[in-house]
């Protein structure tokens, strides 16, 4: 214990040394157990209520310095259970000691290796931190910083987008937001925005940006909070002013963006249209740091993602579209030769810059054809996308696909630039063994490339797309199933016999029925759509029905009997109508009394769409010029179809009325 007595002096020396010398800090966690012991000793001293406050404070300071070292340092400290010990320290009456503990906690929680959960394990911690917020500007700064790091949604930008049908929400995110919200975070932190300390204002602002993200409850509350007689959105807008520090402009733009996306501020509000959006565009300019440009572009992409008017405004603001093409010019050729440090910096951000630019292009071109055209006309745009599709960074690949998806909504581009650059090639490559996240967007892009007017359709088929899409329909991931079957549906539209046969073979009847009983209505609809597309033109109908007739009729019966919405039933009746158009296939209906009764039932259904669809079946069955029409007409008369036709010919619905009259004429002839 002799050395402990000396500690006050040695501690302060040590804390200075540790702060300035990373090397020394790292050595403290040497594999040599003797040295690790020093850290444990500090923790022990810190816990001792009998130690003097000065000593305990110094211990916390030194531990804070240690935490500033490598990630391994933080891990070692976490292994020593430093967090509960420091949280315990917060109960001390001594402000200096509390501040030291908070500073150390801040450092630990801002490290990526620290699990956020550790802040929430003890329910008493959050209320106590809220209470400490009033103690000093340092407690305010550190606590806000801890909060904003401990309810972060990791990779928010990849889950925030609506274009991926299944948002991969981080399980902890909303919980943390709610916990903090329920403990009065909004009220406690709001007044810090008017603090005299810049650091406090900044950390409070960051806190709000994290709290508001994808959280309507918090966002709706924020809109009405008053600070010094001003509403919070007004305060955020003031922080957007161009002479404010960039960090502050960017963070307040994030707050307003999140509040807008959470539905608390309208997208046509001047705060968004005239303040937030232009500020974010400015963040994308060449004058900003690379990090700022990345964050600015990502936030802007999120802001405008679902609103076409904001997309239009952004597209004309400050030449944004051409400004974004600068994002692809890193590392610049100059930096490689002249400045190694700069090259390193450029390389580090090059991926981030590219993925951010792709993301923003995707949002810009999501809805407006003119904007898409402008994007594609940007220098080397298609080449950049094609390159992006095969980059090693998954983030870049994902956003390149997203961008391609957005642009693939244009009929004209599908026919021109997409074909010129053979984008289907790298796209097919992306689809091989990609993670689901990428697959979802890539496969829905593929859907568009398989539309019947797309010239890429042929080569995609030849490169084995059917197999790939069929395997997608077996995915656990709902979005992938939808996209897979959707693409197959597009592929089957007006396709030749061979392709249809390939699809049926690739899919297998079992899988087809599996999909028809899928719990998701989207999957069901697209599968029916696929069937309908398969069952078109007479030879195809007869061919398919001769091999799969029994199962298909079974499935149709099942769906018509089941609890499904109108669209599903309509689609199913349309399939029946197609079957009735076949030559031999007709018999499958005529010999199935159950089906005939169902058709009769739907002819008198309350919904005109279903009536019309059922009528198509009847028309096809009784059409005069075809072989055996007489027998079919007689049989249908027997089950009372003609009576219904007479009734329908009096219908007020002109479509139905016409159709019924035409059908009756077949009987007269």
């Amino acid at each position, binding site marked *: 214990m002799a050395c402990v007595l000396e500690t006050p002096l040695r501690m302060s020396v040590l804390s200075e040394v540790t702060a300035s010398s990373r090397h020394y800090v790292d050595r403290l966690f040497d594999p040599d157990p003797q040295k690790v012991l020093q850290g444990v000793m500090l923790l022990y001293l810190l816990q001792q209520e009998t130690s003097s406050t000065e000593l305990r404070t110094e211990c916390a300071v030194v531990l804070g310095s240690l935490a500033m070292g490598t990630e391994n340092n933080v891990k070692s400290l976490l292994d020593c259970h430093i967090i509960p010990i420091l949280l315990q320290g917060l109960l001390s009456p001594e402000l200096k000691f509390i501040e030291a503990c908070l500073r150390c906690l801040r450092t630990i929680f801002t490290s990526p290796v620290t699990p956020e959960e550790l802040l929430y394990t003890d329910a008493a911690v959050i209320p106590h931190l809220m209470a400490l917020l009033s103690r000093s500007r340092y407690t305010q700064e550190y606590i806000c910083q801890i909060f904003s790091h401990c309810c972060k949604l990791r990779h928010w930008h990849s889950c925030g987008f609506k274009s991926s049908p299944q948002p991969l929400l981080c399980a902890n995110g909303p919980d943390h937001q709610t916990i903090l919200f329920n403990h009065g975070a909004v009220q406690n932190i709001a007044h810090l925005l008017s603090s005299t300390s810049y650091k406090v204002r900044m950390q409070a602002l960051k806190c709000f940006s994290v709290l508001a993200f994808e959280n309507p409850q918090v966002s709706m509350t924020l809109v009405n909070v008053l600070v010094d007689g001003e509403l919070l959105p007004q305060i955020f807008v003031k922080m957007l*002013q*161009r*002479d404010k520090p960039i960090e502050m402009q960017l963070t307040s733009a994030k707050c307003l963006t999140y509040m807008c996306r959470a539905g608390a501020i309208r997208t046509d509000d001047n705060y968004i*249209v*005239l*303040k937030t959006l*232009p500020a974010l565009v400015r963040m994308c300019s060449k004058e900003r740091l690379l990090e700022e440009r990345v964050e600015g572009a990502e936030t802007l992409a999120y802001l405008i993602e679902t609103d076409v008017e904001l997309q239009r*405004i952004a597209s*004309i*603001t*400050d*030449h944004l579209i051409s*400004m974004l093409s600068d994002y692809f010019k890193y590392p610049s050729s100059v930096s490689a030769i002249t400045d190694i440090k700069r090259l390193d910096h450029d390389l580090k951000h090059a991926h981030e810059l590219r993925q951010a630019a792709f993301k923003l292009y995707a949002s810009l071109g999501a809805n407006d054809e003119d904007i898409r055209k402008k994007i594609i006309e940007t220098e080397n745009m298609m080449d950049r996308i094609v390159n992006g599709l095969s980059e090693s960074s998954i983030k870049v690949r994902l956003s390149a696909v997203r961008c391609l998806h957005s642009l693939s909504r244009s009929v004209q581009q599908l026919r021109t630039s997409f074909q010129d650059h053979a984008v289907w090639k790298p796209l097919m490559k992306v689809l091989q063994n990609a993670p689901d996240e990428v697959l979802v967007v890539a496969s829905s892009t593929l859907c568009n490339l398989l539309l019947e007017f797309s010239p890429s359709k042929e080569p995609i088929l030849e490169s084995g797309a059917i197999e790939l899409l069929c395997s997608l329909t077996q995915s656990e991931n709902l979005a992938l199933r939808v996209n897979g079957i959707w693409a197959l549906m597009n592929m089957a539209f007006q396709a030749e016999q061979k392709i249809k046969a390939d699809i049926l073979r690739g899919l297998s009847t079992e899988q087809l029925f599996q999909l028809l009983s899928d719990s998701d209505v989207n999957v069901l609809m697209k599968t029916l759509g696929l069937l309908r597309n398969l069952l078109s033109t007479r030879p195809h109908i007869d061919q398919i029905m001769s091999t799969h007739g029994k199962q298909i009729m079974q499935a149709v019966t099942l769906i018509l009997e089941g609890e499904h919405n109108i669209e599903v039933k309509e689609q199913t009746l349309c399939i029946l109508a197609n079957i009735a158009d076949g030559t031999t296939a007709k018999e499958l209906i005529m010999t199935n009394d159950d089906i005939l009764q169902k058709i009769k039932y739907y002819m008198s259904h309350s919904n005109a769409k279903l009536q019309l669809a059922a009528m198509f079946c009847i028309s096809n069955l009784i059409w005069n010029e075809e072989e055996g029409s007489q027998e079919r007409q007689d049989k249908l008369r027997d089950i009372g179809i003609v009576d219904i036709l007479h009734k329908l010919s009096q219908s007020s619905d002109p479509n139905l009325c016409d159709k019924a009259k035409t059908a009756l004429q077949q009987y007269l002839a």
Partner: protein
Amino acid sequence: MADPGAGSWDGGLPCPPEEQELSQRLRRLYPAVNQAETPLPRSWSPKDKYNYIGLSQGNLRVHYKGHGKNHKDAASVRATHPIPAACGIYYFEVKIVSKGRDGYMGIGLSAQGVNMNRLPGWDKHSYGYHGDDGHSFCSSGTGQPYGPTFTTGDVIGCCVNLINNTCFYTKNGHSLGIAFTDLPSNLYPTVGLQTPGEIVDANFGQQPFVFDIEDYMREWRAKIQSTIKRFPVGDRLGEWQTMLQNMVSSYLVHHGYCSTATAFARVTDTTIQEEQISIKNRQRIQKLVLAGRVGEAIEATQQLYPGLLEHNPNLLFTLKCRQFVEMVNGTDSEVRCFSARSPKSQDSYPASPSLSPRHGSTNSHIHSAGVDSPSCSNGVTSTKSKQSHSKYPALTSSSSSSSSSSPSSVNYSESNSTDSTKSQQHSSTSNQETSDSEMEMEAEHYPNGVLENSTRIMNGTYKQEEILQTDESSMEDSCPQRQLCGGNHAATERMIQFGRELQTLSEQLCREYGKNTMHKKMLQVGLCLQPELAHSRSRMPSACWPTRTPGTAPWGSSWIQFRGSLCALLSTVLYWSLRTCQSSPR
């Protein structure tokens, strides 16, 4: 911050509330602008527009009243005043009230004198953003893709950043990005229309702007402040002092303030590189140029700096052009000797720069030229000088630059313009154009070839008849009393002779060094200075009279500005000839 001059200017008469609001807003936006000296644009000019333009609603609404058949029917209007440089950042907005038949509307900027029968952007020193295609036109008939199109109901803003000489537009409050760079100074807000029914309203500050221009201004203020703060400062204070002393000393020597420079050197314990006599020589030549006696200045230069002009044929040509101009207005000694009214006054050579009050006389001479006084521009008398000073004593003393104890050739041109502006405002209430010299500013560019490319567009684009017409009317209006060569016939003969020589020299230079549009331009400027020449043109051999650049209207004080700039040019050449080759001529 509010400038007292601006305050008194605004508060002179009781104004309607909207005027007050405008004045308030302008003062807030442009606190550094002295509106008494450089008024801000407040409306479109009823004088500076094409016939097809109609103005209403306090000259803020512009409508098209021509046929609108094709681009030859385009028409523009400029604001009453150019954008003062002191604005730093200037902004105005235009609301499209109606796009009319085709919506061929252009919003932008142009220098004074640019043809008004065109849309902004089509000509040199003219810049525009057009509604029909969204293109920007930078002194060219073909536009560049710039922004979206605009039409009825849109508000288009135009921001001129005089700090970095760029311009960007806004549409309905959204910045569209930089449209033009390297803008010249003294541009006027301009709009152009081309088809019937087109109506636009200007907002020079009468109403709040849709775009948040104040936020943009804040950014630039912060930017500049941080630049100043971050400016690296040398460790030792002494370095700063030496640098400042050198700066002051070289300035004084350059401009030939011999006694001041000596005194300064004595006080600061430094030495002057150049010898006194040499400074005085340069000063003498400068004064000759400023007095308009360019012929003598050329002689003196050839005598004191043998070989210098031979090595600088362009400079010699520039000087000779000026000499020609001075001959035309009767100032140069070659023609002055013919005039009975103004004998050659040898004694006006300043024997020593310490006799500084002499400058006062030159000053008043310029003064009289600035105001539209009769043409005895060389008849400088001291009484006149006293008169003009006693007439507006307060003004003269308040003018920061024209303190009578230390006159200088630089102050000279400054004080001239200040005085003339002020006296005009005192003498007449009519809102007379005080500085219609914008076109001359081009001529101020030194003929070192920088401008050669950019001037080409102007030449030969217009039919001579058209120009003649407009010239005559405007010239007769503004200056009926001025006479060619002081009215002396012999002098006129000599001048014509000289003009021919000049033309020959130009052709010779052209053969030796290739075509120089700057020279051509100088000849043109020399020509169009004189109202009488337009009439006498028929009597002259046509080769002497190149086509006049349309729209140039160089009257009044502009002559003197040209002298000033020529003087500075010559002085700079002499100064550097000394510094580079050590064999300084005595």
